[in-house]
């Protein structure tokens, strides 16, 4: 299995490394919203360049030939690209399962129908909260909530399967019952209740976002209660709760392993093993310079944290290293300044105290939503200069 040797003329057999199965196409960093937990890089305003339509289609076709089957169009807000329908059509023709990951801003009935015709398989809409006021405050837009509701209804009416995504944090997690009720009323097929992961802007705002342990336990109990109800009714909606790893004693097996099945392409064509890897002190290859086969199998960046040669103690001799791969490289780097350290979430990490401090901080009163740093171009440019 996983023998790509016959697919590419320029590839030798690589028994150890399987193909990429998931492709995340970050079409643009442009976005009309300003979520303070956005996972885009802090310096996104510096990366203005975007691949052309033809370059994207070439990337899609190379990744498909390597084996990618799931494709996410995201950003930024992918809807700001005028060529989105064309990209969807090309991708679908190649055999991808096409997911549009959007804030719903810029969507309208005409585009919903145009995408359906192009073959779009699924639409995910992200919400900021279950009530208009908090939602709009977090999104930095007064019209966002109404637009999202209208678009969620239109997406379902057009017959798409729909995922609703709520990023949860200390300011909205206590309303999780109302969030779930809203999703059920909107007939979501899947609901992602994703507590912030602390990368990008969310890391900057961590103290103002991280929920307390009690908040988290409450959210889990409520979600489980709804799950039991849904199961009893044979209801098809699935609730997916992503808890913040800050309350775990072992890290997550990030991205299923570095450069293992996920491939992200950023707006300017930089290839990454995960969407936050751009911040690491590693040079990542660009699709304008190398083939994706080279990038995936042979590039320095994609091989940098594969296997376990790069590990230090305590990971190196740890019996669990093939389960969690030492956790997340980005988190290790952000928190310790060294990407080859164990993820500090791990209780065996010498830096685990940082996580304990963050948990203790969460128990203290924190500033309100209005004091979070919002993601926008002006702030991005200031951060980069500073």
């Amino acid at each position, binding site marked *: 299995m996983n023998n790509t040797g016959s697919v590419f003329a320029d590839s030798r057999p690589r028994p150890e490394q399987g193909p990429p199965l998931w492709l995340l196409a970050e079409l643009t960093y442009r976005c009309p919203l300003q979520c303070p937990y956005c996972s885009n890089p802090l310096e996104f305003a510096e990366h203005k360049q975007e691949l052309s339509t033809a370059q994207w289609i070439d990337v899609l076709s190379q990744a498909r030939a390597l*084996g990618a*089957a799931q494709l996410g169009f995201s950003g930024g807000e992918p809807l700001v690209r005028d060529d989105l329908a064309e990209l969807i059509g090309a991708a679908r023709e190649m055999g991808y*399962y096409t997911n549009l990951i959007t804030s719903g801003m810029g969507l309208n009935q005409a585009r919903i129908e145009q995408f359906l015709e192009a073959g779009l*398989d699924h639409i995910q809409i992200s919400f900021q909260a279950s009530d208009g006021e908090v939602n709009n405050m977090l999104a930095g837009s007064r019209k966002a909530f109404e637009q999202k509701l209208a678009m969620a209804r239109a997406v379902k009416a057009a017959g798409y*399967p*729909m*995922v609703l995504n709520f990023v949860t944090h200390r300011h909205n997690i206590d309303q999780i019952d109302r969030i779930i009720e809203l999703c059920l009323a909107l007939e979501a097929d*899947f609901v992602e209740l994703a507590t912030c992961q602390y990368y990008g802007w969310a890391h900057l705002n961590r103290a103002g976002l991280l929920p307390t342990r009690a908040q988290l336990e409450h959210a889990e109990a409520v979600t489980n209660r709804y799950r039991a109800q849904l199961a009893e009714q044979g209801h*098809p909606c*699935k609730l997916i709760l992503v808890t913040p790893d800050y309350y775990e004693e072992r890290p997550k097996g990030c991205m299923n392993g570095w450069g293992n099945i996920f491939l992200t392409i950023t707006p300017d064509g930089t290839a990454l093993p995960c969407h936050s890897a751009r911040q690491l002190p590693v040079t990542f290859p660009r699709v304008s310079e190398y083939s994706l086969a080279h990038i995936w199998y042979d590039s320095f960046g994609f091989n940098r944290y594969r296997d376990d040669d790069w590990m230090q103690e305590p990971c190196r001799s740890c019996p669990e290293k093939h389960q969690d791969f030492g956790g997340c490289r980005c988190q290790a780097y952000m928190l310790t300044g060294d990407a080859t350290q164990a993820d500090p979430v791990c209780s065996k990490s010498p830096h685990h105290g940082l996580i304990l401090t963050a948990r203790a901080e969460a128990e203290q009163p924190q500033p309100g939503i209005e004091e979070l740093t919002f993601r926008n171009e002006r702030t991005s440019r200031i951060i980069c200069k500073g």
Partner: protein
Amino acid sequence: MNMPLSTSVPALRPGYRMQWEPVQDCHVLLYPEGMVKLNDSAAEVLKRVDGQRSVGEIIAELQTCFPSAAELDADVLAFIGDAHEQHWIRFR
């Protein structure tokens, strides 16, 4: 799990798609942000799940194609029941 009736007519849930992936050398079921690899028998069943054929017809067809398979009907029923419980398919 409720065993499906042989008269039930299963169809893939909207937004779910099965296809052959040459690189993975297997059939996969694709759905919103998800993908499962299917083994050969699961794929043989799902290929016939088209919103037209009943469970009974699917079993009969598979028995013709794979005459030496023992207890095929019980396996197919269990698989269809399981796929229904996972909401991959629905009955019409």
